[in-house]
């Protein structure tokens, strides 16, 4: 995680760098190559950044950004007085927390389990199966869940045939947090193990041998060698997760919002979509989006501080 060395080996051995005009001439094809990407980023990432001023306007699509009337902080005032907004904030934080508890440990456990399998072929097979759902779209994943667990799905069909009654998980607001966590685990936990498998492969096997010679059993080796070896990655993943606490998945909620109702399924991202684009109240949605971005940046910063407090690097160094 932290082995990045900023200096290249050849630095310093070369003569002083030439005049910028010379370098520009020398590197013109390199610059030309980056141009398409830079243009795309400018148009679709940097220009929208300036588009955030709509959050301080009463945006009118006919007038455009330049001629819309300024609203100052009115949109934010409206936002903070809106029960639906706080509902979305609450849902986001709640779902984020539930997913942290239910999802986060799964890839680690799965990686440890898989790492203990000796046969390379079995490992490869399991890996190719569990990675697969990561590449499914959310529409597909949710359709599969619906067919398996929905009111007309395989599970309820089985329950009905055996007279146990029905249990429609897909439309039940009370179990929604569990449902979406199950979906995330099914779709992403397999993919999540890659990082941990890599960290496990990097643990020095001599340590295990030495520990075994000293009489440490497999659980002690797990606790004293394996887990410390994973510590850096785990902290990094945790930092990323905390930094993204306000992003709990978007399409997943968009698709299921109608089934369980907005009071359960609305998160900050869907809030800005429904109250911004779907109703044409662009400035209002932009204000919600800006609120989320600012808090997210603070969270990333805070999560890094936390990582530093644990003596780890996090996203960037102290």
């Amino acid at each position, binding site marked *: 995680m932290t082995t990045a060395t900023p200096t290249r080996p050849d630095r310093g051995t070369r003569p002083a760098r030439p005049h910028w005009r010379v370098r520009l001439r020398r590197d013109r094809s390199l610059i*030309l190559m*980056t141009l398409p990407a830079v243009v795309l980023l400018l148009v679709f990432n940097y220009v929208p950044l300036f588009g955030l001023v709509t959050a301080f306007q009463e945006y009118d699509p006919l007038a455009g950004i330049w001629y819309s009337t300024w609203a100052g902080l009115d949109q934010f005032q409206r936002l903070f007085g809106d029960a639906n907004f706080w509902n979305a904030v609450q849902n986001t934080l709640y779902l984020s927390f539930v997913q942290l508890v239910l999802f986060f440990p799964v890839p680690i456990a799965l990686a440890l389990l898989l790492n203990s399998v000796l046969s390379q072929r079995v490992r490869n097979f399991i890996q190719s199966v569990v990675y697969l759902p990561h590449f499914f779209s959310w529409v597909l994943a949710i359709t*599969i869940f619906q067919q398996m667990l929905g009111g007309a799905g395989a599970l309820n069909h089985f329950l009905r045939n055996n007279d146990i009654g029905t249990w429609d998980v897909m439309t039940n607001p009370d179990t929604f947090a569990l449902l979406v966590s199950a979906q995330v685990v099914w779709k992403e936990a397999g993919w999540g193990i890659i990082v941990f498998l890599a960290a496990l492969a990097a643990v020095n096997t001599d340590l295990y041998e030495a520990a075994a010679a000293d009489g440490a059993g497999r659980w002690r080796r797990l606790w004293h060698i394996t887990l410390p070896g994973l510590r850096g990655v785990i902290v990094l993943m945790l930092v990323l997760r905390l930094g993204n606490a306000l992003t709990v998945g978007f399409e997943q909620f968009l698709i299921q919002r109608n089934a369980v109702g907005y009071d359960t399924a609305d998160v900050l991202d869907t809030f800005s979509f429904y109250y911004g*684009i779907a109703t044409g109240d662009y400035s209002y949605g932009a204000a919600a989006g800006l609120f989320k971005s600012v808090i997210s940046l603070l969270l990333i910063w805070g999560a890094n501080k936390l990582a530093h407090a644990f003596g780890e690097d996090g996203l960037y160094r102290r």
Partner: protein
Amino acid sequence: MLTIERMREVAEAPAPRPVRRRKRNTRPAWEEPPTVAGEAVKGLTLGGVLLVMLVPLWIIVVTSLSTQGAVTRAGGLVIWPDGLTFEAYRVMLEDTTVRTALLVSLGITAAGTVVSMVVSVMCAYGLSRSRSFAHRFLLTLLIVTMFVNGGLIPTFLVVTGLGGYGQWWSLILPSAISVFNILILRSFYSSTSADLIEAARIDGAGDWRILWSIVLPTSRAVTAVMALFYGVGYWNSFFNVMLYMPTDSEKWPLQYVLYTYVNRGNGMPGSVNSGFGTAFSQTAPLSLQMAVVVLTLVPLLIVYPFVQKHFRTGVLTGAIKG
């Protein structure tokens, strides 16, 4: 900001050496013999994981291949094959909605992947030569977008402002490049042998030639993985369709058709003329729906095995570089 410093530093680090694979299939001498209970728990857990992944896919495939009679007998999804037929697929492919959607999806995926890969590969190489003109500035320009972005609504306003509503390019260009993917490619390109490049330069090769004849051929694995990532992104594009062409049903890709007619259970449009209308007598609607699900899976399953073995190289760099 510190973040940028660190990201740049991370991005500039050479790619890590590929992780050495564990060759031995045998237990090392110092490890205690496995307990029966331990092995059983392990086997059951991993078996359970595999079942949870594979059984839904199995049920869906079998149902899509089942006859009307089998679906009626099962009262819904068919778990065990009982009268197989390709009727649902025939009916589905005769239906103009699905056929158009399939073509649209394939088209967007092909065009999008080409655009994304060309732009990303060029950009990654352009930034990979150390001490080139303005590369630090350009790198910063890229990395900043990983942390700050305008968000949903400003992006939507820019795209529609450029006349993207209902246009094909609105499904491709706004999300054509992933800075993360570019950084991964770049770290691979930076680690291409400097001697090789120097030799080519002495032979008179320019940067375009070096990229095409030396750097690309020596980094096939990561190129394949990135193409898969981009391709899957386009194949799965759903929300952009909802944003930019929610009403032009003849421009919908497969995922949106899946959403509208399977997930939300709406009736197929124009069901008087389309295959779906006349088909109900011979084919169970459920088989038809499952056939659409399978159709969205097939291209993925065709490409996946070829690229899957390279995941370690492609993703690890990304993962380790955070």
